[in-house]
């Protein structure tokens, strides 16, 4: 019982760390492509971020089970890239079909973003990190959820800042991705301030 309690506590800590000190976008640079291209509006950013949280939590869980229960016993660890990407693609496909069937409105709103998530490197990255850091099943759930939440937080903040930004005059060469990256750098600086909060 004590072991389970400790593991749950570790899951909570890892989850918090993934949101703040180890933010998957601002410290490991994953999921940058949608971050720079889909962060013009808060609404769309929130939609994409929400989908990322959902997909990341569940694919981390599924990938953990596939890795530890199928690949490790068979000694096929190097095969994980293909298995992970297939599981992610299949999961996104299933979510799409379920949404289309039961909640067409949400499906309409998320339509374009769901397939985009399959190629979001943050999703695959979270699964690979979880393997490398040898998390247990419970900790993995916390990690997947926290990473997704951290990504959502970063893209929401960015979209909020960029909306304010529309009227300001930015040098021609710096417009668009350039200034987005500078803001991301400033945000990353701010997030460094969280270092040491958790140990």
């Amino acid at each position, binding site marked *: 019982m004590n072991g389970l309690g400790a593991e749950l506590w570790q899951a909570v800590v890892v989850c918090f760390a993934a949101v703040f000190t180890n933010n998957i976008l601002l410290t490991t*640079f*994953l*999921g940058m*492509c949608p971050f720079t291209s889909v962060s013009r509006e808060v609404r769309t950013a929130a939609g994409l971020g929400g989908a990322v949280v959902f997909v990341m939590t569940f694919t981390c869980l599924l990938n953990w089970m596939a890795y530890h229960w199928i690949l490790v016993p068979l000694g096929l660890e190097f095969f994980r*890239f293909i298995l992970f*990407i297939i599981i992610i693609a299949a999961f996104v496909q299933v979510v799409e079909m379920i949404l289309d069937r039961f909640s067409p409105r949400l499906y309409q709103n998320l339509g374009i973003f769901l397939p985009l998530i399959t190629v979001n*490197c943050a999703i*695959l990255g979270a699964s690979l990190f979880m393997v490398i850091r040898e998390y247990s099943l419970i900790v993995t759930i916390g990690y997947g959820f926290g990473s997704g939440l951290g990504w959502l937080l970063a893209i929401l903040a960015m979209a909020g800042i960029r909306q304010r930004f529309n009227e300001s005059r930015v040098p021609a060469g710096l417009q668009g991705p350039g200034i987005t990256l500078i803001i991301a*750098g400033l945000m*990353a600086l701010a997030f460094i301030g969280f270092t040491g909060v958790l140990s």
Partner: protein
Amino acid sequence: MKTASVKPMQEIIRDGLWKDNPIFRQILGICSTLAVTNLVLNTFVMCTALTLVTALSCWTVSLLRSWTPRNIRMMVQTLIIAFYVIIVDVVLKAYWPDMSRSLGPYVGLIITNCIVMGRCEAFAGSNPPGPAFWDGFFNGLGYSAVLLGIAVIREGLGMGTFCGWPLPYFSTHWDKWIIMVMPPGGFFVLACVIWACRSIRPREVKK
């Protein structure tokens, strides 16, 4: 129709290296590699791997293009890319375990690098294998050149070294900017590189 519109070689080279450079023109695939640009050597290994994977997967996708059903082509492309990435990963683990460990998950993330998929989809799917191979190769090279530049700046300013060798001025008199080897430095240097490159060659006038 397929053979009439093959791009000439010089154009493939120029587009890949400069005109459509993956980094500062298309802003693609920065995720998986920006993270390792704090050390020149790591960047070099990552970029070599990426260039090889891009060139070979473009070649393979192009070879199989007439047998691949259109609606599952993304899946086929992903599997081809994953196949080459696994080879790179296994070879690296066997012959250079230290490097494999310090790159962590980033080698595997080449699979989701948008450049690889982007070139397969945009060029290799509708061109013969030869040009497709070179298109992938030169896009990878254009990508690598920019990232190596970023790595040289970050490692030099942040640690005063180049591939681990101390640089004359930066390792002695220079007050090291530790922030450069930390994540924010990556964002700032990339932003400045994009700024500089886009100012040198402003967006061309639409014909």
